[in-house]
């Protein structure tokens, strides 16, 4: 680091060109930090576990058949049994809405009916008693529903005392210190008390963009709407076949029409389409920012080498080896990128404070400053290699050249 002092002195003397590059790096850095943060967030979103057995599930809708409610219910169970009897079907349940389908309903969750404000919000999935098993979600505490809990009604059956199963994320938001306390506790949905009888590990909600998307409740009530939604779980690797089998079975009844026949994978893809597009765009933005940094550093280093040909020749004549010239330009460059990254980090912290104070957004976490510094410094180093080697190749005889 013997070169450090003269390098700092020269940079302080030269001022303008290095300062402009430092500013450029600082601004790039600030955008980079946010882009990297957003990208990682999007990635976490896209790859977040849904809790469901994604590859074996599909769903479809058929309309209710019959005039009377009892007739409708009987027909519904007849179809359910017929589908369950198919060889390729592992399980089948009735459900009010499919996770990530953009359709569903939810509640404000209160711990006390008289509380003026809710503790959290959650979406509700309601249907057959064995919905959890069909979805493939993992029960990590408490107990599942049994057949006796199931009932078909014209509403969600909030007055029934079957209890509810909730997602772990909801348990954590109700009991941040120890989510296990949720089990056996009472929550209020529309002022009606419900006992929490079970907790599932993960369960994706109906809307991928909703703030409370991980908070979900499961109820064992088959909610009679215009159409019946079936969620079918095929045997591993047999989803296509199962879909064909189910269609074939139902098409035996000429009055029946099947709607919304979709795999869960399709729902998930559609739900995350925007996030996927943003993720891809952010990747391009980051590559672009890295290129801008590299071009800036490359240009500045190259210019400074061209401008200092004679000076470099003189240094070589006075005893600097090729390696020492490369070292000189590498250190000079490293100093500039470090200053740029530091200034950028300060800008980011400043922007963070503003964002938190005025926009109620979450600030960029600290590690992202480190990631971005690493990206900027590494790109700077790579960009400086070629001009530094060029500088090292300047002949020491350049010192005696008069023109």
């Amino acid at each position: 680091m013997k070169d450090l002092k003269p390098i700092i002195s020269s940079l302080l003397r030269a001022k303008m060109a290095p300062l402009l590059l430092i500013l450029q790096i600082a601004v790039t850095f600030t955008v980079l930090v946010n882009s990297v943060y957003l990208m990682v967030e999007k990635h976490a979103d896209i790859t977040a576990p849904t809790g469901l057995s994604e590859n074996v599930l599909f769903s479809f809708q058929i309309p209710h058949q019959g005039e009377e409610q009892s007739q409708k219910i009987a027909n519904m169970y007849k179809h359910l049994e017929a589908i369950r009897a198919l060889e390729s079907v592992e399980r089948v349940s009735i459900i009010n809405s499919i996770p990530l389908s953009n359709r569903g309903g939810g509640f404000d969750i209160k711990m006390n009916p008289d509380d003026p404000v809710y503790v959290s919000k959650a979406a509700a999935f309601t249907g057959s008693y064995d919905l959890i098993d069909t979805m493939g979600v993992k029960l990590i505490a408490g107990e599942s529903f049994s057949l006796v809990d199931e009932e078909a009604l014209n509403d969600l059956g909030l007055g029934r005392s079957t209890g509810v199963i909730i997602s772990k994320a909801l348990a954590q938001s109700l009991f941040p210190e120890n989510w296990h306390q949720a089990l056996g506790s009472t929550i209020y949905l529309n002022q009606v008390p419900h006992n929490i009888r079970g907790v599932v590990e993960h369960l994706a909600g109906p809307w991928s963009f909703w703030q409370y998307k991980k908070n979900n409740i499961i109820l064992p009530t088959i909610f009679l709407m215009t159409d019946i939604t079936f969620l079918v779980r095929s045997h591993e690797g047999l989803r296509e076949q199962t879909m064909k089998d189910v269609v074939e079975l139902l098409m035996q009844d000429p009055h029946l029409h099947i709607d919304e026949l979709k795999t869960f994978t399709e729902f998930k893809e559609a739900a995350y389409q925007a996030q996927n597009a943003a993720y891809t765009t952010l990747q391009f933005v980051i590559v672009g920012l890295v290129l801008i940094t590299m071009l800036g550093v490359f240009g500045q280093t190259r210019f400074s080498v061209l401008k200092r040909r004679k000076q470099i020749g003189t240094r070589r004549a006075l005893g600097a080896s090729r390696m020492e010239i490369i070292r000189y330009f590498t250190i000079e460059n490293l100093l500039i990128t470090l200053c740029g990254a530091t200034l950028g980090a300060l800008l980011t912290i400043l922007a963070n404070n503003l964002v938190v104070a005025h926009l109620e957004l979450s600030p960029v976490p600290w590690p992202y400053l480190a990631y971005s510094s690493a990206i900027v410094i590494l790109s700077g180093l790579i960009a400086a290699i070629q001009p530094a080697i060029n500088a090292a190749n300047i002949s020491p005889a350049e010192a005696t050249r008069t023109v």
Partner: protein
Amino acid sequence: MLKMRGVAKSFITDTVKTQALHPFDLEIQQGEFVAVVGPSGSGKTTFLNIAGLLEEHTEGQYFLDEKETTGLSDKFKSSLRNQKIGFIFQSFNLIPELNLFDNVEMPLRYRDFSAKERSERVLNALEQVGLAGRKSHYPQQLSGGQQQRVAIARALAGSPSFLLADEPTGNLDSKMAEGIMSLLKDINKQGTSILMVTHDMDQAQQASRIVEIRDGYLNEQKVAKTA
């Protein structure tokens, strides 16, 4: 101290071979002040570059303090230049962004001197050229003559075997040139050998020996010097 045997330099461009310097022998002893004269384009700069290890000769052998320099690696040659040769250039070649102290210290940084020793050497050298009081000034704040004195201090600071001066007064007016010449003579009197390239015969006359280069041929001038 410096011994050249059959040293020559030729360039080959496409199929044409140009002989920049024809084979010559030259020996310079410790304490000598040798002037190399000749018109422009005669091969003076090529000779200077070879003597200064800035350029490789294509034939012959060049010994510096008994050490054969032909075919040495870049690292080795750089360190030989740094330790054995003190360069003085026609246009001073000071680094404008560095103050006088840092300029003189620059070649010392390529050696294993401690910061304290570097500082002592810089101050001594600046003292020797009469500019110790201006160590924090920048080259642009000095006259041409003063800048060349700084360059001489830079050349002296590393205690080289000899000074290699390339037209040291070429960019100076006659009064300043005179000052630089007398400084060089003083340095020579104190025992440092000097090899000076010049086209000025008057200055060459002040050296202890004159070597003439004409059309790539190097000849010792037999004419006795006047001073």
